[in-house]
C-alpha cells in the first residue's frame, strides 16, 4: 500500500508540468487579489439574478462583484433563479434581511416589478444589471449597468458588412429568451446580407452541433455563423468543419476557449459585454452611493459593451479569460 502511494507521489513530483494547470491558475489569481482599501462600515449588498445553475457568464459577473466587495469592505450575498416568480421570492428574502444595497437583473421585468418597488420603499438603493435597461428607471432603480442587446447585434451586423459577408445564421440557444431575440434583430437591422434564425437546444451540445451541421449542409450560401454564447462558438466551428463549410464563426461573449480560438484564427471575432465589469461596477456604484450619494449615468444606462474583440485583442485578453475575469 505505502509502496504504491510512494510511487504515485514520486510520479507526480517527477512529472511536473511547467505550463498550465493549477499552479498557473494560482499565480494568475494572486495577481487579481486584494484587500479592503476603505474604512467605511461593513455594508451588506445582495445580488439576485435570473441565472441558471452553473452558468459561465454569471460566474464572471460574480467574480467582478466579489472583487469590488473585497475592495469596498462589503459583505456580498448572491442568489439566483431562472423562474421569475422564484427570483422575486429571493429578492424578497434579501429585503427581509434588511440588506444595505440590492443588485437585480430584470430578464423578467413583470415578475420583478412589485418586489423592486418594495425594496425602494424600504429605502434600499437598487441597481439593475445586464437586462432590463428600459424598465430600470421606471421601477425606481438608481441606474442600469449592461449592454443594449439591439446595439450589440447591430455592432455584429456592421462587422459582418466590413468582412464582406453575404448570408449569416444566427444561432439561438434558449427558446424564450427576449435578449437573444433582440440580438438577432440587431444583426438583421445592420447587416446588408440575409440573416436566418436557427433555434437549437442549448442544454444539449451534440444537438447544437448536429443542428448547425444540418443547416450548413443544406444551405451552401451561408458564409457566417453567429452564436449568442461563448460555449457554443467552438461547437459551431466543429460543425462547420464537419459540414465542409467555409463559413466564418463569430460569437457574442468571451471565455478562455473563445480567446484561444480567436488567437489561432478559427473564430472571426467576438462581441463582448464585459460581465466582470457589470458585477464590479454594480457593487462599486452602490458603495459610492452609500458613501457619497454618487451615481453614474445621469439617469441613463451605463453601458459595458459592445466591445468587438478580434485576433489582436485576444492575445492580451487570453490571460484574463483563463483566470475567469473576462
Amino acid at each position, binding site marked *: 500500500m505505502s509502496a504504491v502511494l510512494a510511487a504515485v507521489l514520486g510520479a507526480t513530483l517527477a512529472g511536473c508540468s511547467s505550463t498550465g494547470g493549477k499552479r498557473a491558475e494560482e499565480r494568475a489569481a494572486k495577481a487579481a487579489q486584494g484587500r479592503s482599501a476603505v474604512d467605511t462600515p461593513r455594508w451588506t449588498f445582495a445580488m439576485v439574478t435570473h441565472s441558471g445553475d452553473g452558468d459561465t457568464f454569471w460566474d464572471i459577473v460574480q467574480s467582478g462583484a466579489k472583487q469590488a466587495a473585497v475592495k469596498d469592505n462589503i459583505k456580498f450575498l448572491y*442568489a439566483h433563479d431562472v423562474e421569475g*416568480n422564484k427570483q422575486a*421570492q*429571493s429578492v424578497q428574502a434579501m429585503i*427581509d434581511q434588511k440588506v444595505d444595497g440590492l443588485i437585480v437583473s430584470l430578464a423578467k421585468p413583470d*415578475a420583478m416589478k412589485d418586489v423592486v418597488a418594495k425594496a425602494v420603499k424600504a429605502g434600499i438603493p437598487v441597481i439593475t444589471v445586464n437586462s432590463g435597461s428600459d424598465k430600470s428607471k421606471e421601477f425606481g432603480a438608481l441606474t442600469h449597468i449592461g449592454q443594449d442587446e439591439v446595439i450589440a447585434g447591430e455592432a455584429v451586423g456592421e462587422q459582418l458588412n466590413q468582412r464582406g459577408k453575404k448570408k449569416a445564421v444566427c444561432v439561438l440557444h434558449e*427558446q424564450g429568451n*427576449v435578449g437573444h*431575440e433582440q440580438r438577432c434583430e440587431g444583426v438583421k437591422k445592420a447587416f446588408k446580407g440575409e440573416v436566418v434564425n436557427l433555434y437549437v437546444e442549448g442544454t444539449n451540445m451534440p444537438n447544437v452541433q448536429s443542428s448547425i451541421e444540418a443547416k450548413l449542409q443544406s444551405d451552401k450560401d451561408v458564409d457566417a455563423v453567429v452564436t449568442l454564447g461563448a460555449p457554443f462558438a467552438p461547437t459551431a466551428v466543429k460543425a462547420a468543419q464537419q459540414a465542409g463549410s467555409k463559413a466564418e464563426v463569430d460569437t457574442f461573449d468571451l471565455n478562455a476557449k473563445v480567446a484561444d480560438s480567436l488567437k489561432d484564427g478559427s473564430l472571426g471575432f467576438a462581441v463582448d459585454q464585459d460581465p466582470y465589469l457589470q458585477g464590479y461596477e454594480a457593487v462599486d456604484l452602490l458603495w459610492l452611493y452609500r458613501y457619497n450619494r454618487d451615481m453614474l449615468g445621469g439617469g441613463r444606462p451605463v453601458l459595458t459593451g459592445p466591445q468587438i474583440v478580434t485576433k489582436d485583442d485576444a492575445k492580451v485578453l487570453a490571460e484574463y479569460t483563463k483566470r475567469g475575469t473576462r
Partner: protein
Amino acid sequence: MSSTTATVPEAGPRTRSLPRRLLGRPELGSVVGAAAVFVFFAIVADSFLSASSLSTVLYASSTIGIMAVPVALLMIGGEFDLSAGVMVTSSALVSSMFSYQMTANVWVGVGVSLLVTLAIGFFNGFVLTRTKLPSFIITLGTFLMLTGLNLGFTKLISGTVSTKTIGDMEGIESARALFASHFTLGDVDLQVTVLWWIGLVAVATWVLLRTRAGNWVFAVGGGVDAARAVGVPVRRTKIGLYMAVAFCAWVSGQHLLMSYDVVQSGEGVGNELLYIIAAVIGGCLMTGGYGSAIGSAVGAFIFGMTSKGIVYAQWNPDWFKFFLGAMLLLATLLNAWVRKRAEASK
C-alpha cells in the same frame, strides 16, 4: 393494504392510546422533519424568524403546496403526473392570451382557461385508463407536448416569448383579489395563495378520510384488480384525480398571471418534480395506496423553508439542490422507519 386505518369507521370505545394513533399517521415523519428544519434555520439564520421572513417562506411553500395536494392524492391513487409543472404555465397562457386577443373581460379568459386545463387533465386520465400504459409514459408525453405548445402558440399569437400585459383590462382587479392579493394578519403579511393552500388541504383531507371517493382513491392505489372486484369505479376515480391536478394547476396558473399580468412561455419545467418531492417527503408511497394531503403540505413547507432558509443563512445557493436531495432521502427513510414501527405496534 395499509390504508385500512382510514377506511374503517371508528366504532366503539377507542382502544389505542393517542401516541399509538399518531404513529399510524403517514405525515408523522415529515412533521418531525419540518420541526427539525425549522429549528435548524432559526439557529443558523438571524433573520429567519422575523414576521416578513415567515411570510416569504409561507408564500414560497404555498406556490408548491397548492400543486402538491392533488399530486399527493394522485400518488395515493397509484399514478404520476409529470405534466403538472408546465400545465400551470399552459393554464396561465390560455387565460391571458384569450382575454387579450378577444379583448374580453379577464374573467372570460379565466373561465376558458379552466375548461382547457380540465380538458388536459381529462386527456391524461382518459388515455391512461384506455391504453393501460404506465402514467409515467403518458404524462411524459403530455409534458413534452405542452412545453412545445406553450412556446409555439405564444410565439405564434403574441410574436414574442411572453404574453402581452392584461393589467389594464376589465375584471383584472377582482381576479387579482381572488388569486393574487395579500392581507395582514397580526404583523404578518400573507399572500392569498396561503389561504388557497390551506383550503385545498382541508378539502382533500376531508375527501380522503370522510367520503366514499376517498376510499376509492386508497383502493385503486392499493390494488386496481382488488378494487375493481369490490365495485370501485376505477376509471372514474383515476380520471377524477387527474382533473383535480388540472384544477389546482389552473389555480396556480391564474395566480402567476394575476401577480405579474404577463406570463413567460418557457417556465414551469421541472416543477412537477418538486410537487412529487413534497408529496413523498410528506409520507406518500411511490407505489400508491398510502399517504395524506396534510403530509404534502408539510412537505411543501419543508421545501419552502429550505429554499429560502439558504438565502437567509447567506449560504452559497449552489448547494441548494444537494440539500434538497439529502432531505428527500432522509425524510423518506424516516417515513419508512416510522411506518414500520407503527405496523409493528398494531
